[in-house]
């Protein structure tokens, strides 16, 4: 039990510290790397909660794919560090307002659970005993929430097709490899064997 608490405080501390560093780091690439650290540690927190499936998905999807693309983009940008700092004071009130709203909402949630424990209790016991949470999620997702799940899939598909059509450029001058054509080609069509008599050429 002591060990679990120690691990929790370690993960929680690193998560918060990394999250602070995301906005405090001068170099945007460092910011993204700290963001990845924060993701990774929150995956650890999920596992500590017993939600190992969500924890692994967080690592596979966010850390393994989304953050890589993010890092990709940030690395390729030509960033002027001085210019980046300039608007800081201008955006500070907006950021502070968003942060304040989030804080109040969190306080409301935890306050209501503290006053009426039954509110929190319903959320905790979503799984039956003896069922791994992978199985529990599967059972819910593919039965009760099947249509919502499919709708989410379709929305993602539409977004994907949208992204492709927006970025696709037809370049007629680009030379592309057509493997089918290459394989179909026979020596008779392209090669011609000629007898070259000396001193005359072709």
């Amino acid at each position, binding site marked *: 039990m002591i060990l679990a608490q120690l691990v929790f405080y370690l993960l929680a501390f690193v998560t918060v510290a990394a999250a602070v560093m995301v906005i405090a780091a001068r170099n945007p*690439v460092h910011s993204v790397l700290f963001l990845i650290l924060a993701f990774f540690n929150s995956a650890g927190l999920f596992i500590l909660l017993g939600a190992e499936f969500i924890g692994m998905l967080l690592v*596979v999807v966010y850390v*393994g794919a989304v953050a890589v693309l993010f890092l*990709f983009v940030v*690395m390729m940008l030509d960033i002027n560090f001085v210019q980046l700092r300039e608007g800081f004071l201008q955006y500070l009130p907006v950021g502070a307002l968003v942060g304040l709203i989030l804080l109040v909402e969190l306080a409301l949630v935890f306050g209501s659970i503290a006053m009426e424990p039954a509110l929190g209790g319903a959320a905790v016991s979503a799984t039956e005993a003896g069922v791994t949470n*992978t199985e529990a999620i599967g059972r819910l997702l593919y039965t009760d929430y099947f249509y919502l799940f499919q709708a989410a899939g379709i929305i993602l598909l539409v977004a994907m097709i949208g992204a492709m059509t927006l970025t696709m450029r037809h370049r007629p001058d680009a030379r592309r490899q057509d493997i089918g054509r290459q394989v179909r080609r026979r020596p008779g069509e392209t090669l011609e064997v000629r007898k070259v008599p000396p001193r005359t050429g072709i």
Partner: protein
Amino acid sequence: MAEIFWGTIWPLVLLIVYILVIVVPLLVAVAYLTYAERKVIGGMQLRQGPMFVGPYGLLQPLADGVKLFFKETVIPSRANKGVFLIAPMITFILALIGWAVIPFGDGLVLADINVGILYLFAVSSLGVYGIIMAGWASNSRYAFLGALRSSAQMISYEIAMGMIIISVLLTAGSLNLSEIVRAQAEQGWYLFWHFPMFMIFLVAILAETNRLPFDLPEDEASLVTGYNVEYSSMTFALFFLGEYANMILMSAMATILFLGGWLPPFEVAPFTWIPGPIWFILKVCVILFVYIWARATLPRYRYDQLMRLGWKVLLPISFGWLVLTAGVLVAFDLVPG
């Protein structure tokens, strides 16, 4: 006091011992994999391979290690120092932590977690960070180009790999690696049921570990050696060790998913006498041999061909196979669990 010792400290000590029991032989295996690679490629090209250091050149990996250790670590002056030094560590550590969930025999596993295969998949998808950080922090064109190629390549082939893993999971009915092997004891190795997927998996792990014919990130002809061009001494050695440990990890993954892990090929007398871990190691060696064989035989792919293969050939086939697997399981009422 005694309670704290037996309850908390002693399990920790045991855990460290277990970890060492896995990691030390792994590092020896990595060293001798480099030796085996040079010997096998030498044999395939009618050469001798290393033969001067020790009998049959057996001490060559040791000599290489000592040489790398005594070289000077050069950090480029315009490099981003922190990230530059963290990158090789990440590569190496990620290559090691995957082994926590690998079952070497029935019950012989450090962490028998429920989502073992997802854990392995997560670890292999994190592998890209070591390379991309190295490429960026080096502040060198070649290194950066190598890193970009590598991350695009690894993400592309991971998707096909994921689809293959899902097909296997559907048949086994569990995300636990030991359970997947036990399911194969009943149903027969998935090598037979999922043979096309096994072939695609072999191709995908070649790309995932940046090995020939897909070693574009370190394409020495066009990128010097790609992402690790600025690294020297032990920082380079960590990349090297990480790459080879990853090769063994991916081979172990293929063994568990398709070749029945620790199971003997036939459940009859002379095969069952040999203990499970030995079978496991033998199967891993077979797949490692395929790695080396491919390196000695095949020329390097061009980058657009690599992307075409990943997205337009392997991904649709593995998607189709996934649908087919699910359809057959439902149609014949074979869904496990």
